[in-house]
C-alpha cells in the first residue's frame, strides 16, 4: 500500500515537472498514430475477403488465399524481378556516376564553375515525377518527340514507338533515375571528399604520386565506408521502387509492363484500377514485412561493420 502511494506520488511529480514536454510531442504522436500505427492493423485486410461496404470487421476471413492467388499469378514473379533488378542497377550506375562526378568536381579549381556545376546538377532532383514525365515526353513522343523527329532521321533510323516498345525501357529508366538522382548522391560523396585530411594528398604529392594514383589510393578508399553504408541501406529497401518513376515516366503504358511494372505500381493498379483488395493488400503486406526484416538486418550488419553509420 505504502509502495503504491509512493509510486503514484512519483508519477505525479514527474508529470507536473514535465507535462509541457508531453504536450509538445502530443501532436506528432497523434499524427504517427493516424498515419502509421492505425494502418499497421489494416494489414489484416490481406487475410480477409475484403468488401469495402462491409468494412474490415464485417468482411469474411479468407485465410492465406489472397497470398495463394497472388503467387499463383505470373505477375508476382515479374514484379518482384523488376523491383529487385532495378534497385540493383540504379544503385550501381547511380553510385558510379555520383563518385565520378564528385571526384571531378573536387578537381575543378575555379570556384565559380564548381558552384555552378553543383547547383545545376541538383535541379532535376527538385522536380516531381509528373514534370519528369513531361520532360521525357518531349524527347520520346512518337509523333513530336525530339528523338524521333530530329535525332533518328539524321542517323537514318526509322521512328521508334517508345511508349510501346519495352526493350528500351531498362535503359531509359536507368538513365532517368540517374539523371534525377546524381546531383543528390554526388553531394554525399563530395562532402565526404572535402572532409579528407589534405595532409594525405600533400604527402602523396611530395612522394611524386600522380593525380590518378592519389584518387586511386587515397580518395576512393576513403569513400568506401560511405559506399558500403549506402549499399546496405539500399539492400534494405531492395523491395521498394519509386512509384513515380515507374508510373509517370512510363506513362503507365501497358505494352511496357513486362519491364516496367514493379511491386508498387502493381499494388496501385490492383487497388485503384481493379479494386482487387485481396491481391493488392497481399502484395503490399509482403512488401512491408520483407522490407522491415531487410532493413533491420541491414542495420544489424551495419552495426557490426561500422557502428558509426548504423541507423539506430
Amino acid at each position: 500500500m505504502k509502495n503504491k502511494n509512493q509510486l503514484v506520488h512519483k508519477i505525479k511529480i514527474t508529470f507536473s515537472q514535465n507535462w509541457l514536454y508531453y504536450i509538445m510531442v502530443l501532436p506528432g504522436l497523434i499524427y504517427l498514430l493516424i498515419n502509421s500505427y492505425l494502418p499497421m492493423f489494416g494489414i489484416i485486410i490481406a487475410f480477409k475477403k475484403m468488401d469495402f461496404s462491409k468494412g474490415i470487421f464485417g468482411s469474411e476471413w479468407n485465410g492465406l488465399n489472397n497470398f495463394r492467388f497472388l503467387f499463383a499469378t505470373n505477375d508476382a514473379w515479374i514484379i518482384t524481378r523488376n523491383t529487385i533488378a532495378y534497385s540493383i542497377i540504379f544503385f550501381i550506375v547511380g553510385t558510379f556516376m555520383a563518385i565520378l562526378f564528385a571526384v571531378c568536381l573536387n578537381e575543378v579549381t575555379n570556384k565559380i564553375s564548381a558552384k555552378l556545376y553543383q547547383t545545376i546538377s541538383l535541379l532535376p532532383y527538385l522536380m516531381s515525377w509528373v514534370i519528369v514525365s513531361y520532360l521525357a515526353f518531349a524527347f520520346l513522343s512518337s509523333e513530336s518527340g525530339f528523338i524521333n523527329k530530329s535525332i533518328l532521321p539524321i542517323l537514318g533510323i526509322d521512328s521508334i514507338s517508345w511508349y510501346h516498345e519495352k526493350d528500351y525501357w531498362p535503359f531509359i529508366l536507368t538513365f532517368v533515375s540517374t539523371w534525377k538522382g546524381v546531383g543528390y548522391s554526388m553531394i554525399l560523396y563530395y562532402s565526404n571528399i572535402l572532409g579528407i585530411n589534405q595532409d594525405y594528398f600533400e604527402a602523396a604529392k611530395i612522394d611524386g604520386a600522380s593525380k590518378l594514383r592519389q584518387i586511386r589510393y587515397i580518395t576512393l578508399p576513403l569513400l568506401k565506408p560511405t559506399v558500403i553504408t549506402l549499399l546496405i541501406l539500399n539492400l534494405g529497401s531492395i523491395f521498394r521502387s519509386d512509384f513515380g518513376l515507374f508510373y509517370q515516366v512510363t506513362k503507365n503504358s501497358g505494352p511496357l509492363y513486362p519491364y516496367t511494372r514493379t511491386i508498387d505500381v502493381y499494388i496501385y493498379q490492383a487497388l485503384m484500377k481493379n479494386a482487387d483488395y485481396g491481391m493488392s493488400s497481399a502484395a503490399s503486406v509482403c512488401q512491408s514485412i520483407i522490407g522491415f526484416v531487410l532493413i533491420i538486418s541491414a542495420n544489424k550488419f551495419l552495426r557490426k561493420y561500422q557502428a558509426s553509420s548504423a541507423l539506430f
Partner: protein
Amino acid sequence: MKSREYRYTQIFANTICFIIILSAILPFIMLIIASFTDNDWAAANGFTYFPGKWSMDAYSYIIKQWDIIGHAYLMTIIVTLLGTSISITITTLFAYGISKPNVPGMKVVSFILIFAMLFNGGLVSTYYCYAKIWNIKDTIWALIFPGLLMSGFNVILVRNYFTNNIPASLEEAARIDGANALYIFGSIVMPLSKPVLATIGLMTALVYWNDWANGLYYLTARGGSQYNTIQIILNNINNDIQALAQVMTSNDSGFSTDIKMPSTTIRMAIAVFGILPILVLYPFFQRYFVKGITFGGVKE
C-alpha cells in the same frame, strides 16, 4: 607555372562536370522552348531546340483559361503554405521533446517514431484508413495529411541540431529564471535554430509543391476536384490522354471525338508554370538544400 598534369586534370574534370550539367539542364530548355513553339509546326516537325515557328498561343490559351490554371496555382500555394507550416510546427515540437532523453517516457516516444519509419501498413490499409475511417477523400486535408505531414528524417535532423547546437547551459539558465519548457522552446531554441528550420521548411515546401500522388489516390471526384493543384492537373492530363488512347485503340471512334485535350504545346506550357517558381527561387535557397542533404544523408 602550372604543370601539364594540372591542365589535363582541369580539362578532364571540367568536361565530365559539363556533360553532366548539360544533360541536367537540356530537358528543361527543351520544355520551355516546346511551350513557345507553334503547335502546328511542332506537330509536323516535332519539338526541337530551334523551332521554325515561335508562338505565344499556349500562354494566351492559359491566360484565357486562367480561372482553371490560376485556381490550381492558388491551391498549390495554399497547400504548400498550410502543409509546411503545420509540418514545421509539429516536427520541431516533437523533435524538442525527444531531444530531452532525461524526461521519462521520451525514449519510448523516440522508439515509436523510429518504428514507424521502418514499418508501415502499406498502401492498401493506409488508403483504407484515410478514405473510410477519416473520410478524407475530396477534401483539402487529403493533400496535407497522408504521408507528408511529419517526416521521420526531418524530426531526427532537427533533434540532432537541438542536441548538438543549442547550449544546455542557456536553457538551464532560463529554467532557473523560472521559464517553462514552451517558453524556452519559443524564445531561445527556435531563434537559434534558423538554419535547420530553413532547411526542413524548404524541403517540406518542395515536397508539398511537387506532390501528385495524394491527389491521385484521394481526389477522385468525377469532373475534377476543386482542390486540384498544378501537379495534379498535369497528372490528370496524362491520365486522360491514356484513357483517350485506350478508347481510340478499342476503335470506338464515336467516343474519342468528344474528348477535347489541350494541345501538346499547351501541356508543356502548363508544366512550365509548374516548375517556374522552383527555377526562380532555387538559386537563392540552394545552400539550404545542400545542407539538408549533407545533414540528413548517411550519418544521423
